[in-house]
């Protein structure tokens, strides 16, 4: 049987996974393929390439272009090979005089209504219509071009990233089908009939005004220049490509960076990417221009005080200055007075090196990562219950789920490519249950079938998950065999007694959660009774005072129903940033060495000490919020921050600002002057994901290669800067390439022992654990046992958050993100994604607005116990009354001025999702915003004055 698959080839129709196989003959070649495969695909697998226009192997066959006609022995006519399934013994002819004439006639009709501007067309050299004209040998168009045509159809240039030129459209419907089948938005349709047929965004609107989410699937699907990237129009067709990994969300899409020289022309999602299978979102595909933005830092800088202008210096001087300050600080204030933070935007290798620098050269464990403020409760909760700090499934697993619970996540905005996959499964009939205070877009999925929304009050997750568990236990919906075989009996019995108590019933907690008991019971029954139930969750679970408890509650639910250890089920944290999983794996947390090995574990620590050649502190170090508290107190005096913007992203901004201004030395390594860098004394210009080698690990534990496609603008990849700093501190690190860093990780982290760059080249990606036991990686975790042996049910007592409403603060604020912007916006704000969201606004329910006399667009003062900021109002029925919502993509918005120091009891993950506030109409910015504007202006001037008067944006 033919099994070879080349992701760079289009096989015309999707693969079929039948276990039954069929043998047939195509042009005399015998071929065996899975039952259900099209003749077109069978032929392509044998390298017999039948001409086609409307077919693509990421879309179901459509059979409209008629170009792929073939002859089948014993059958009449000329069936379309894309819509004809293979049959045993079938004899197919793909090329003869009759077929050639038929195809030429079809092409002739297409070309009679197509501009003859190939030489100046943006798709020249990359056009399937052009290719097919050549393939069928079209030499003339007998009909002429003077008849009725579409050549004067008006172009739509409204989208910043792609143009729509209907004069070039052949109405093959690939764009429409891509929007439906690949993206699942259904924003495009064919308007009109016959000759009047035309592609229509929504109801004949411009692309920008339509429901289009700019994922670009239609652009990629278009076989002509009708839908075309503007970057290709401007720069020409790319001439080479490099496969790499997206630097945005935790889906970790693979892309072909298509290049001319060292310039990226376009990013094309890679069909061979196991996380995304050739799909992407607006950020990954289009928002890469920040890498060459004029704001990029390209020269190291230093200063003695944050009230001074920056001074451009050599790398050597900057590194020497930083090392000298760090050493002096430790001499004056002690070994534990300094520390460092990495970002989940950093590669695994960078993160590993920074924690190594801190543990080995700083000689303490004051290392943390921004995963502290997003998914640290996942690490605690899953390790406690299931024994490993990671999600259990592949993304593809959802295609076998029968019921999907989404808790505190908004996948269409934050994990768009996975949301498309979820929607695909929902269209196939899977049930959806959403537990969220807001009405999220997933609930509006076209053709979704049944969907339930549990609109709980912010801060009551644990009460809800306990109620779900209560229903499972008291209604006899448990999987007793799974529990008996796979779980700790005593822990289970204790939990069962706890969760059976009437106080956890849906009826008893309704006044807490606000969710009707009937809805809770129905949701529990749905999840527990289907063959495969899966839970996906996001920061709406973790960023609470009981984030860790909620993660354990989710794991309890999955174990109680036996939804662990096979495809279609599982506990799946959706990670916000590209390398949240990796940053945790790499030992960034202050209590754990790489591979989640506690610093107090003598055996593990000794192995690291032997390889690193230094003693390692056996007690945990400070977490990020502890560092801030210690800085304000005066015992923590210097910090190395790589790639993270704590001044914008961490809660209670004024507290963070107080901490940063208390430092004697702040070293920031970043690609921009971010908010944190404005408090820095040393600026080390970093490299974007396009400028370095390394790996990212996505939410499904998949390790993907990041490949350098252009030279670092400041001359160094980030890992090289850390190596330089270590050397200056007297701790030489001897690496020539990140692959050597990965080799060291494999040597020291038991779940990574089989990982190497060679193996990644061979297999494309690897899901850890990858070791002797699982040499090809582990797509599904816990299939036979748990790393702790038996699964451990945890007691999940609901403890109400202290962040409560009262007369002074009667509303609850919850924060989140939107599709077009990413995290603190440092990247996406420097792209045309600004067209969709150029300011953060406050969503408020119309009834709350009416009570306060608020109209759409009014300026609102939002006041919490921490501070005040001012945003514009947007009335929205997505919210439930009493709950308001905003994003934190723009620093001047000050969304985190109002969030508080309230945090998860186990991990100190901030409670971003619950802040009691009051909202009122105001006429001017808040006091903080005025101070911020002044500070921001001064810091930008300090930077500008340091830069030499050269043209910005020129590659150096």
């Amino acid at each position, binding site marked *: 049987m033919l099994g070879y698959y080349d992701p760079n080839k289009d096989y015309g129709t999707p693969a079929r996974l039948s276990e039954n196989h069929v043998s047939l003959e195509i042009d005399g070649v015998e071929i065996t393929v899975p039952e259900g495969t099209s003749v077109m695909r069978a032929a392509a697998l044998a390298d017999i390439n039948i001409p086609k226009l409307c077919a693509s192997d990421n879309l179901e066959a459509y059979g409209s272009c008629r170009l792929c006609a073939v002859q089948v022995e014993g059958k009449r006519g000329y069936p379309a090979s894309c819509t004809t399934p293979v049959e045993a013994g079938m004899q197919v002819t793909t090329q003869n005089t009759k077929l050639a004439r038929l195809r030429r006639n079809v092409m002739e009709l297409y070309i009679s209504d197509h501009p003859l501007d190939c030489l100046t067309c943006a798709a020249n050299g990359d056009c399937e219509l052009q290719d097919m004209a050549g393939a069928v040998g079209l030499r003339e168009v007998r009909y002429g071009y003077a008849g009725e045509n579409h050549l004067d159809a008006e172009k739509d240039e409204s989208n910043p990233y792609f143009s729509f030129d209907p004069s070039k459209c052949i109405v093959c419907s690939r764009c429409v089908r891509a929007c439906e089948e690949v993206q699942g938005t259904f924003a495009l349709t064919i308007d009109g009939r016959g000759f009047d047929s035309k592609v229509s965004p929504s109801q004949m609107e411009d692309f920008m005004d339509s429901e289009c989410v700019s994922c670009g699937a239609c652009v990629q699907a278009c076989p002509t220049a009708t839908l075309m990237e503007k970057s290709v129009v401007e720069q020409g067709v790319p001439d080479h490509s490099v496969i790499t990994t997206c630097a945005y969300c935790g889906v970790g899409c693979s892309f072909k960076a298509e290049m001319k020289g060292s310039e990226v022309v376009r990013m094309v999602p890679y069909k061979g990417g196991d996380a995304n299978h050739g799909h992407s979102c607006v950020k990954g595909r289009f928002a890469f221009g920040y890498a060459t933005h004029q704001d990029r830092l390209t020269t190291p800088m230093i200063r003695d005080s944050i009230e001074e202008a920056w001074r451009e210096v050599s790398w050597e001087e900057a590194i020497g200055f930083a090392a000298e300050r760090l050493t002096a600080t430790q001499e004056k204030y002690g070994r534990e007075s300094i520390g460092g933070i990495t970002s989940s935007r950093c590669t695994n290798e960078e993160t590993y090196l920074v924690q190594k620098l801190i543990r080995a050269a700083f000689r303490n*464990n004051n290392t943390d990562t921004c995963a502290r403020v997003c998914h640290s409760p996942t690490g605690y909760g899953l390790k406690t219950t299931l024994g490993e700090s990671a999600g259990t499934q592949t993304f593809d697993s959802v295609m076998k789920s029968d019921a999907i619970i989404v808790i505190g996540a908004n996948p269409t905005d934050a994990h768009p490519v996975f949301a498309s996959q979820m929607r695909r499964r929902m269209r196939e009939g899977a049930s959806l249950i959403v537990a969220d205070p807001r009405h999220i877009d997933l609930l509006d999925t076209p053709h979704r079938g049944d969907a339930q929304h549990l609109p709980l009050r912010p801060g009551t997750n644990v009460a809800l998950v306990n109620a779900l568990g209560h229903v499972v236990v008291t209604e006899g919906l448990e999987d007793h065999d799974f529990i008996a075989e796979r779980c700790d009996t005593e822990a289970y019995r204790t939990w069962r007694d706890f969760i059976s108590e009437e106080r956890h019933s849906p009826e008893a907690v309704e006044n807490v959660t606000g969710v009707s008991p009937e809805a809770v019971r129905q949701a529990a029954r749905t999840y527990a009774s289907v063959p495969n139930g899966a839970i996906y969750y996001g920061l709406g679970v973790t960023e609470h*005072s009981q984030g860790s408890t909620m993660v354990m509650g989710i794991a309890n639910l999955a174990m109680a129903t036996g939804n662990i250890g096979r495809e279609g089920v599982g506990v799946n944290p959706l990670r916000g940033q590209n390398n949240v999983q990796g940053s945790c794996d790499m030992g960034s947390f202050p*209590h754990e060495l790489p591979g989640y090995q506690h610093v107090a574990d003598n055996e593990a620590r000794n192995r690291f000490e032997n390889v690193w050649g230094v003693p390692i502190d056996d007690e945990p170090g400070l977490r990020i919020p*502890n560092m801030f*508290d*210690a800085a*304000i107190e005066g015992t923590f005096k210097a910090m190395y921050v790589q790639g993270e913007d704590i001044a914008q992203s961490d809660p209670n901004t004024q507290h963070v600002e107080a901490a940063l201004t208390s430092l004697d030395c702040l070293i920031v390594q970043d690609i921009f002057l971010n908010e944190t860098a404005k408090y820095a004394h040393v600026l080390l210009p970093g490299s974007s994901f396009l400028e370095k080698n390394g790996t990212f690990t996505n939410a499904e534990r998949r390790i993907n290669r990041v490949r350098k496609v252009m030279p670092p603008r400041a001359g160094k990849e980030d890992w090289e800067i850390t190596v330089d700093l270590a050397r200056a501190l007297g701790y030489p690190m001897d690496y020539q390439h990140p692959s050597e860093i990965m080799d060291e990780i494999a040597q020291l982290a038991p779940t990574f022992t089989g990982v190497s760059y060679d193996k990644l080249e061979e297999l494309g990606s690897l899901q850890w654990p990858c070791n002797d036991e699982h040499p090809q990686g582990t797509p599904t975790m816990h299939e036979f046992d748990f790393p702790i042996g038996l699964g451990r049910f945890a007691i999940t*007592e609901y*403890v109400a958050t202290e962040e409560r409403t009262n007369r002074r603060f009667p509303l609850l604020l919850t924060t989140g993100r939107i599709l077009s912007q990413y995290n603190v916006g440092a990247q996406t704000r420097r792209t045309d994604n600004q067209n969709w969201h150029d300011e953060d606004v406050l969503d408020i329910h119309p009834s709350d607005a009416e009570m306060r006399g608020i109209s759409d667009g009014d300026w609102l003062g939002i006041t919490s116990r921490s501070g005040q900021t001012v945003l514009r109002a947007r009335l929205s029925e997505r919210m439930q009354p009493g709950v308001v919502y905003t994003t934190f993509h723009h620093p001047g918005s000050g969304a985190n001025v109002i969030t508080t120091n309230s945090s998860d*009891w186990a991990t100190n993950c901030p409670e971003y999702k619950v802040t009691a506030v009051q909202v009122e109409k105001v006429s001017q910015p808040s006091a903080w915003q005025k101070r911020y504007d002044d500070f921001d202006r001064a810091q930008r001037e300090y930077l500008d004055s340091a830069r030499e008067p050269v043209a910005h944006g020129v590659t150096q």
Partner: protein
Amino acid sequence: MSDQRDTLIHMANQIAHNLQSSSDPATGVKNHLEKFWARSMKERIISYLDDADGDFTPIARQAVEQLAEQRRQAS
């Protein structure tokens, strides 16, 4: 009380609230502090035992006392 002191005692109490239904809450809290808190934080919370009177919840106080005893024996 200082901010740092307020914060640490609040954190210990919060852990105690969340582990109140476990079989041995005080030991659970002690183990949590031992496993996740920095050395300096442990030393400080122990130093507050003498003069924090009613600021600790009973479980948190018991846990910190256990932690103090464990560290005394280890040193």
